[in-house]
């Protein structure tokens, strides 16, 4: 059996979970085995219909009210106990904060290796797989030899695809032996944030500014351009380190991953750690004084020039009604 760890909101599986399920189903097909899922939370059982369209046969629902709130060690111990009793060949989780964290705990508790951020897996006696390194700028090919294979699926790398034959999964509540100490880490409360404006990750147009912008005030030009295009402003790490923009604006390996229709990179050199954050952009336009800058090979379109001249002029051109 292949076991998928599924996160959901109010009974609807999350997108990264559907991506992980897609990988899990491929593995089930490769090994001619059954696909099961494990879910937590009061509304976990409500995922069954949706999971049926992905070919899941049994939905294992953790039957303990204390598990309704996320508690990484208790969730991991539950998955561990399911591994003990059901003996899945592999457990596949989404490459999210929770997915990674729970699987790492399972690995630690059962002394098993974990392979995170998988891109491609071929199941055989051992598993031959490809995984992301350097936030996605490099791929590692490796072989995994382990009694139970613990894998997470890299986010945004699998397109969720439904099964050819829809199943009607059985929901099986499973009981656990958990200690009070398993609950020493759990979500105490959730603080809601009043975010305004377009989130970087969801914007259709992003105007990024790097060290070439030269100072905090010059971002005004970029803000105007972003406004004209209904988008939002982002930054490189160099600009954030200078204190010109908050870290929330940072795009890249240790910042936000964006996937807009258009990314306009102004005064950004094109370091791999920056580009890995914007590789999801459909089009990249670079504005840079240096025709040799690395971004000139990575962008689709380029303007060789000073952003302080080009951007205001562009704002003026876009501002004119036809």
């Amino acid at each position: 059996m292949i076991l998928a760890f599924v996160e959901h909101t109010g009974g609807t599986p999350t997108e990264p979970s559907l991506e992980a399920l897609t990988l899990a189903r491929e593995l089930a097909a490769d090994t001619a085995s059954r696909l099961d899922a494990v879910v937590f939370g009061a509304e976990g059982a409500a995922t069954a219909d949706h999971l049926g369209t992905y070919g899941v046969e049994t939905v294992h629902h953790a039957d303990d009210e204390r598990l309704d709130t996320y508690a990484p060690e208790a969730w991991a111990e539950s998955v561990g106990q399911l591994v003990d009793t059901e003996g899945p060949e592999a457990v596949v989780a989404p490459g999210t904060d929770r997915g990674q964290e729970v699987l790492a705990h399972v690995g630690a508790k059962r002394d098993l290796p974990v392979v995170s951020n998988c891109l491609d897996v071929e199941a055989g006696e051992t598993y031959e797989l490809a995984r992301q390194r350097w936030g996605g700028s490099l791929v590692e090919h490796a072989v995994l030899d382990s009694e139970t294979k613990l894998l997470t699926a890299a986010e945004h790398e699998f397109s969720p695809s439904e099964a050819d034959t829809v199943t009607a999964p059985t929901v099986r509540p499973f009981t656990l032996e958990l200690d009070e100490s398993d609950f020493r880490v759990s979500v105490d409360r959730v603080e809601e944030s009043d975010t305004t404006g377009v989130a970087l990750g969801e914007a259709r147009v992003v105007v990024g500014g790097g060290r070439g912008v030269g100072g905090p005030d010059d971002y005004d030009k970029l803000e105007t351009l972003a406004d004209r295009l209904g988008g939002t402003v982002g930054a490189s790490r160099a600009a954030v380190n200078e204190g010109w923009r908050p870290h929330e604006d940072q795009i890249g390996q240790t910042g936000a991953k964006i996937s807009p229709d258009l990314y306009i990179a102004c005064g950004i050199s094109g370091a791999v750690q920056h580009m890995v954050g914007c590789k999801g952009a459909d089009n990249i336009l670079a504005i840079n004084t240096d025709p040799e800058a690395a971004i000139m090979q990575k962008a689709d379109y380029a303007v060789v020039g000073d952003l302080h001249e080009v951007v205001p002029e562009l704002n003026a051109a876009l501002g004119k009604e036809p």
Partner: protein
Amino acid sequence: MDTLACIKRVPDTGAKITLTDDDQHIDASNLGFTISPHEECAVEAAIQQAEAHEGTATVLSLGPPDAEEQLRTGLAMTADEAVLLETEGEEWRPRETATAIADAVRDDADANLGFDLLLFGDESADAGNHQVGVRVAEALDVPFVGGVSHLDVEDGTVVAKRDVTGGMEVYELDLPAAVGVKEGVNEPRYASMRAKMQARKQSIQRSDPPSSEFAGGIEKLRLEAPDTGEGDAEVLGEGVEAVQAVADLLENELEVT
């Protein structure tokens, strides 16, 4: 309160990653070295918490002798002690790394762990396993939260927050505890010239951790730099003369106006 930050030496790759001929490693012959930005924040948090709660901050790295450079950067940021678990430069997997770190922390123990708060990066820059912090915490039987973007310690309790859609989830952990922090949790200080000079003279505790052998596991075959479809960009023009072409592109071709 004594704190520990774990850091990993990695090549500082620029605009292009070049692999060695056997595709086993990044060709670092022309590169400098650094640590993950997440780990810079772990060091800063270790120093801040030690300062606020009257204790010491220690930086620890498992890596080649040259990882001394990254430890000295930590000392220059005003960490009090540095520990190097010396390897021969080969790659250690998360299980082995965590076992060695946990053993080192345990060895240090007088009454309890020797440290009240262990800080990790959310993920290492090169391997991105998302595991070492969790595995160390499990080995030492202390609570762990990763992906932390806000961190406070009040009256023996760690308050750690993690971003989720629409807000932040809040965790409260009793000390001793471990956390994995993300860049943005604080602003790492710059080391002064004087601190850098001083750090050069400070001593570093060294030990050779036994390379633990695990049955089975993961074996690297090779690395690959994915084809990013790089080519030359279509140059729309130079300076302000390009503006009309850009406006046309945005309005007519990409239709984003």
